[in-house]
């Protein structure tokens, strides 16, 4: 029962993060929603690892953690550059490519 609850929780959190990416236009909020989604994916791995008593789920969570750290550092640096360039955090301001 609790294994099913863990998977359900991971699915709900992932869906909430996806909704956040879709409905928000502020870059900071989009990055936060991506963090929520990555966290939900890691939660699914850990729940599976606990369900079958294997350490592989936690190993995968550590890799997801590393990836989230690298992603958020690059993403926040991009957000800073974006703000310097466009003077706004609206993601739609960069809707047009130049080139």
């Amino acid at each position, binding site marked *: *029962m*609790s294994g099913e*609850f*863990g998977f359900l*929780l991971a699915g*709900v*959190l992932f869906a*909430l*993060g996806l*909704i*956040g990416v879709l*409905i*928000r236009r*502020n870059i*900071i*909020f989009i*990055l*936060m*929603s991506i*963090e*929520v989604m990555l*966290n939900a994916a890691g*939660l699914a791995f*850990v*729940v599976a*690892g*606990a*369900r079958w*008593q*294997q*350490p*592989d*789920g*936690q*190993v995968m*969570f*550590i*890799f997801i*953690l*590393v*990836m*989230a*750290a*690298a*992603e*958020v*550092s*690059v993403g*926040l*640096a*991009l*957000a*800073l*550059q974006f*703000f*310097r360039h466009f003077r706004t*955090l609206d993601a739609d301001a960069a809707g047009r490519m130049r080139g």
Partner: protein
Amino acid sequence: MNTMLYVSGFVAVISTLMVITRKNSVHALLYLIVSLLSVALVFFVLGAPFVAALEVIIYAGAIMVLFIFVIMMLNVNKDSVQQEIQWMSPAGWVGPACLSAVLLGELIYVMTSSSLRMIYVGMVGPKQVGISLFGPYFIAVELASMLLLSGLIGATHLGRRNDSNNNKKNVERKSS
């Protein structure tokens, strides 16, 4: 123990719902920290204490501090004083405080209950995780280190100020 799992899962869902609906980014960040803490409690109840500690230290600690610094750097509004007054109002922090009080109560209950029973029979401790991490997954550890290095280089490259004119002036000064 099942109740613990359900309560912390409920807190996680509510605080994540608050994250994606807040107008103020700092309020959303507070709720996001509560969400990460409650997911850490779920990990602990499921018998993964090592990963729960990593979640608190790295996610709720390091990554959220990064977010806070960037939000601070981006705060260039003229009416920032007005915003500051607004941030100090209890409406900003009562919600996260109540949700984290629920988590604190759960934590106290876990610590004071006579036996630290996990939901599953055996818990997967840090020793097993370490043996697995540096055994069959060793190549992935190397790849993760390269990923972190590329993230570091990318962040320093993207994060610097775009002042090519100043660089040119410096070069001219040095040459003259």
